């Protein structure tokens, strides 16, 4: 039992291994920030499942790029942005979009698996796209991640308010002159870019743990938009960095560590939130 646990949790040679993952930690922090910022918008638009679909298409694109011997980043971006635009043009909202995504998702995953099986290079590359390989992040990837962070910030900061309005309350937003369709398209492209970066660095399976779970945890605790954003960034970064550090000494993939941390944070927030709900959220009179 102790041995089994030691295979999963250990801090042997932790300090000597740490310098090897400095760039991964930077990448993880950037990714956590982006994911935490974009998370509330995904939740407001009810797009959790679309994120999954986009991630699988990104996986297929990256696998195709690997097979063709071109840049994986390019493949991942092409796959997910294409997928996101298609979803946006179909005018998805969860209710109508779910079956569409359900159709696209296994197709993307299947294509990706096919491309990987045809590829006869290093097998660690194969698993990386599905399960995460942030330990091997190189400077080029770090550069494109930093660029993406800037792009997301430049696009989302000025558009945040109307975009959030359009996401939460599309009918009134439309009536107030917000360009709901155009904003939706812009958001889906940004989402596609973020998914593509996530897929390369943490793998298609981890995308949900970064884009969905931290915001879900944050909204158990508060309904103040500013606080939701701050908390979901905190949770996403915490899961990411914690996952990288914990996986270091055991030498396991980071995915299970990141997903477990993210899940535990969610459970704690959920418990705190339900306690709070039971005691009454605010001081409002019951017989309103």
């Amino acid at each position, binding site marked *: 039992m102790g041995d089994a646990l030691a295979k999963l949790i250990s801090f042997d040679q932790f300090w000597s291994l740490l310098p090897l993952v400095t760039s991964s930690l930077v990448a993880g922090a950037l990714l956590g920030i982006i994911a935490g910022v974009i998370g509330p918008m995904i939740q407001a638009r009810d797009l959790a499942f679309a994120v999954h679909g986009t991630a699988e298409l990104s996986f297929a694109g990256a696998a195709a790029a690997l097979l063709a011997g071109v840049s994986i980043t390019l493949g991942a971006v092409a796959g997910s942005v294409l997928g996101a635009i298609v979803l946006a043009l179909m005018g998805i909202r969860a209710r109508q979009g779910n079956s569409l995504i359900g159709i696209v998702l296994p197709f993307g995953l299947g294509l990706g698996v096919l491309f990987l099986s045809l590829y006869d290079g290093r097998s660690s590359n194969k698993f990386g796209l599905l399960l995460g390989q942030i330990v091997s992040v190189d400077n080029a990837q770090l550069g494109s991640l930093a660029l993406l962070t800037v792009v997301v910030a430049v696009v989302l900061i*000025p558009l945040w308010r*109307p975009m959030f309005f359009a996401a939460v309350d599309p009918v009134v937003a439309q009536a107030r002159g917000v360009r709901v369709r155009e904003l939706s398209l812009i958001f889906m492209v940004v989402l596609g870019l973020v998914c593509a970066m996530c897929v390369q660095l943490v793998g298609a399976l981890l995308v949900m743990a970064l884009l969905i779970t931290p915001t879900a945890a*944050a909204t158990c605790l508060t309904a103040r938009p500013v606080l939701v954003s701050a908390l979901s960034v905190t949770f996403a970064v915490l899961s990411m960095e914690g996952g990288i550090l914990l996986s270091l000494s055991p030498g396991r993939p980071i995915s299970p560590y990141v997903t477990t941390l993210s899940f535990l944070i969610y459970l704690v927030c959920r418990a705190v939130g339900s306690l709070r709900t039971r005691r009454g959220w605010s001081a409002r009179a019951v017989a309103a």
Partner: protein
Amino acid sequence: MTPVVSLQDAALAYGSRLLWSGLDLQVQAGEFVGVLGPNGAGKSSLLRVLLGEQPLRAGQALVCGEPVHRGSSLIGYIPQHGALAPDTAIRGRDLVGFGWDGHRIGLGLGSRAKKEAVERAMVTVGATAYADAPLSMLSGGERQRLRIAQALVTRPRLLLCDEPLLNLDLHHQREVAQAIDRVRRLEGTAVLFVTHEINPILPLVDHVAYLAGGQARVGRPGEIMRAEVLSELYGAPVDVLHHNGRIVVLGGDDTATPGHDHHHEEAHDHG
């Protein structure tokens, strides 16, 4: 005085399907006008015309003397129940705040003026007690009052209400209708109120615009809610019964009231 709403010989059609024509409607400040008619008569579309989202086939539509255009700050709009995602994590205060500056570029951190305007609007509709609770924890009636506050926050000259009483129980129907009535008396806001059920607002309406059979009639409730007028509109015999101060229309498409509500719910499920 310039009327708040002025429609002259207006007609609306989708493709070859004529919804209504020959609509002449003037709404003055502080007036309460009920828009009535069967399903699919183009009641909500009339609101969309005034919001600048739907062009007229013929005629002219003016709001405060200006041609209608999208995003006018002269108009507050209360959409149909169900337009809001049910479990989004925002507070009532945030929903009302969207009415103030949601359309403007920026992060939305808010100003002092916004804070005061939001507070004032929530006091007007009596929603301050649950201003900080998440929307997901509020009842239909509470949400609807926040909707009114959201529409009022910029002190519009015109309030467009699309079936705001739908899916509310009688008690909440009365409260929401009275909140809207109070606003137009206090602030002189003109109200255009779309409904398929006239009775909850019968004591409040000054005029009725009845849309049916591709036509429109405008007048006082007593002039319009009559068998001969509605029979002519529907092109079929219609009875109008008065009972205990309530009006029941029999024989128009309106009679099948249960089917009515069913229809609306279906529309929501797909919308």
